[in-house]
């Protein structure tokens, strides 16, 4: 049985690499074979993860993967350890890979690498998730971002060049700065000192900028507007996962999270969320609304991650993070559906309704969509900081809480405005030509939101079980 568990862990780590090799070996024009194979591997990967998670919940020991390479004086130790934190990262990576393979069909022959890239990126992520040290993981993640620039550069958007330039320069500089700060070991428990606080923040910024918190990522809006409809979601999911992982490692390095740091991160996140909501309101573009919601909840996740040193907050934030990505995939897929059917006037109103229903999963009604993870968080925050005994109601957290609520209402306004603009849009002929296999819209109306809602109920339950363990 122990051997079987070890094989499962090996399968989980190495299946993306095997998939990359196999997909690359298939000729470029044989799209159907590539599609089938990638779906098979994505499903296999997710099933393997489910098995690993169940083994983990049963308290059975999973042997670690460890290799030591010796080259004269250079010792490279390659080690992967599963713990109660990175197991969720493996889960969301495999889930987003599967969602990408099943929801966004690649029907065009851009290049051979386009089909293999999601697997390659997932493999890089899997290797990084096994690391406990930010000094090891950050350079690998930084270099992996170059693959994204390649994907953006290959799209047909007008401003892709400047997007790559903006994003590349910014991410590369903040990564370099964080690595330099990490080398000097300035980070420490005494975060009340301004120098130490600033250096800690410098280490957090690579994570925050990947989570697309606009104050830390000025390229955000340009990126949203210039990613391809089919490749954008996976690209954003990759950025989000890496950002969250960097923040997780940085959080683990801090022994105690001082209130000054949590307030500072909270203020950055609140300002970012207001920024996002105002930009989304003036944008009018139905395509980018899920992206804005994604970064809005990412702000909340980051703020929550540094709210307190208690491990309970980590579980709350990871639950919101995973739910956010799941609904993001669903809503972007629904927009993809709109693009395919927009030219058909009979189905226009139906498509609008479907898109509305998918976006309404993001407005935060308890029990529906993101609300299943959001309301436990609001309850915890309110009971711990706002209404706890001995604290005044009108403190800094109350102001932040009100700003979050305001930003959420503004995002609802953005949904309203984008739906109205969607009325007057005409069909896009290029999508009509390239995507021949239209998806059926019958199941997309009630069944898909119901399915997503059930997944959203399962995620907090899974995190609750893991936290209990």
């Amino acid at each position, binding site marked *: 049985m122990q051997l079987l568990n070890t094989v499962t862990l090996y399968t989980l780590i190495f299946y993306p690499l095997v998939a990359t090799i196999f997909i690359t070996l298939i000729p470029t024009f044989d799209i159907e074979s590539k599609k089938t194979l990638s779906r098979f591997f994505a499903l296999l990967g997710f099933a393997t993860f489910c098995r690993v998670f169940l083994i983990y919940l049963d308290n059975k020991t999973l042997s670690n993967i460890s290799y030591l390479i010796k080259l004269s004086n250079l010792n490279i130790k390659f080690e992967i350890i599963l713990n109660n934190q990175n197991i969720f990262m493996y889960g969301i990576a495999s889930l987003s890979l599967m969602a990408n393979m099943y929801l966004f069909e690649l029907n065009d022959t851009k290049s051979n690498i386009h089909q293999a890239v999601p697997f390659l990126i997932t493999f890089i992520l899997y290797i990084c998730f096994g690391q406990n040290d930010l000094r090891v993981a950050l350079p690998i993640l930084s270099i992996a971002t170059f693959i994204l620039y390649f994907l953006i550069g290959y799209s047909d958007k007008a401003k892709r060049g400047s997007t790559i330039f903006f994003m590349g320069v910014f991410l590369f500089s903040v990564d370099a700065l964080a690595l330099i700060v990490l080398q000097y070991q300035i980070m420490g428990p005494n975060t009340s000192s301004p120098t130490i606080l600033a250096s800690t923040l410098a280490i957090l910024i690579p994570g925050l900028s990947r989570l697309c918190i606009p104050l830390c990522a000025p390229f955000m809006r340009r990126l949203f507007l210039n990613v391809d409809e089919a490749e954008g979601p996976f690209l954003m999911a990759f950025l989000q996962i890496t950002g969250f992982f960097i923040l997780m490692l940085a959080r683990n390095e801090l022994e105690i999270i001082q209130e000054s740091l949590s307030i500072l991160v909270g203020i950055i996140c609140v300002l970012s969320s207001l920024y996002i909501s105002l930009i989304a309101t003036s944008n009018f573009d139905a395509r980018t609304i899920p992206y804005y919601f994604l970064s809005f909840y990412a702000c909340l996740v980051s703020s929550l991650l540094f709210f307190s040193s208690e491990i309970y907050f980590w579980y709350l934030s990871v639950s919101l993070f995973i739910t956010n990505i799941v609904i993001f995939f669903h809503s972007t897929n629904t927009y993809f559906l709109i693009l395919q059917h927009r030219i058909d006037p009979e189905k226009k*109103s139906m498509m609008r309704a479907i898109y509305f229903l998918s976006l309404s999963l993001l407005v935060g009604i308890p029990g529906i969509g993101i609300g299943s993870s959001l309301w436990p968080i609001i309850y915890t925050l309110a009971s711990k900081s706002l209404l706890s005994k001995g604290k005044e109601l009108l403190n800094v957290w109350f102001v932040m809480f009100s700003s979050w609520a305001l930003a959420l209402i503004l995002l609802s306004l953005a949904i309203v405005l984008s739906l109205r603009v969607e009325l007057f849009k005409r069909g896009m002929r290029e999508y009509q030509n390239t995507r021949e296999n239209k998806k059926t819209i019958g199941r997309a109306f009630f069944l898909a939101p119901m399915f997503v809602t059930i997944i959203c109920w399962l995620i907090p339950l899974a995190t609750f079980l893991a936290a209990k363990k």
Partner: protein
Amino acid sequence: MTVLISLVFFACPLLAIWLINSIFEYSNNNKKIKILSLLILLPAFFSLLFMANITINKNGIIHQTYQLPAIKIYFGILLNNYITFYVLSILIGIILTIFFSNQPHMSALCGLVNFLMIISPDYFLLISAYSVGNLILISSILSNETETIGIWNITSNFLWQRISDLMSFIALLIIYINFGTLLETKLSLIELNHLEWSRTLLFTSIILRMISITSLHRDQADSQLNSLNNALANTVMVITGCLIMFYRLSSIIFVDDSLSNVFRVIILLIVLHAFFSLIFTRNKETIKTNLIYLLATLAITAISWSQNILSLILICIVSAFFPLLSPLVNNIQNYRKTKIAIKKAKKWSLSSFFFKVPMRSSYFIAEFFSHVVGTFYTNIVFYRAPQIVFGLIQLPLRLFHNGNLQRSILLSLILMASYYSFWRQ
């Protein structure tokens, strides 16, 4: 036995509405489906009669709850002698809608949501059911709607509903943090005098929902038939839902103190508003919306003064008979003439203006922000300013560089050496 009957009572309307919703769109006005859904609803009626026997004759309360794992939220049924009548009126409303309306699925759906709201024992589920029902209703209206004005109004209403949602859920959260429960039976035993914030939030959220729907739909009269139908379905759902919410939450909102009197004065002002808007209505279509609004305001007045019988009668009238108004709209023969008359009679309305101002102003703030602050932050602070700084550092190189590569390399080496010596100092 009671558990089994309550399950039947719970499941039958769900099944009937599901049937209507799933099949009706594909078979236009099919009588077989109507009769089938009535047959499915019959067990619900019989179980209601059984329960009415307990609640009315024996003056008891049926209270079946099932707690969710790990969370203190309770599913189940709460019935007393008043709620039994409400349920009866809602079921009658559903049946009348199924039989007489040309587009029954939406109104029947509204009825179902109201049914779930009135029997839910937990306040959190009560408001959640309302919000989810509202979302499903808006999406099903959007799937039929082709008129711009219809979509305009329904989406505006969506925004106000979300604002009210946030208010009411935060209010409930405060109550939950203080008392650890949201069950009506438990909260009715607790003194709630000191929770002014949550009571005010709850009251405001319900009133906001009610006024927003009537104000935003009042100028919908110049739209097509489809929009009018949808508007009525939406109005009935929102208003009946609000009334049920108000009735169920009245034990929290109205306590013997001065704040409750303030609420009562506000309600009287709203009644006046409803009365005048009914008097000054000139066209036939908006009269219906205004009449529902007036009846609803009278019902909340009755609830606020604890006149249970009067409020019961008024809510039953709204919930049972007003869904019937949507088929009446369909029967208008001289629609074109009416439409012209409506266009002439259209007036500027203060209340709809009040609801549109925050939307417009936040949109303009967002425009200003994205054009001025956003551009300044992304394009100037993070793009142009570093470019200028680096340009200044390169300035000597730029001045001397004239295309000769060797000379440029030489100059750059000199510059690097000079920067280095400057940095060392």
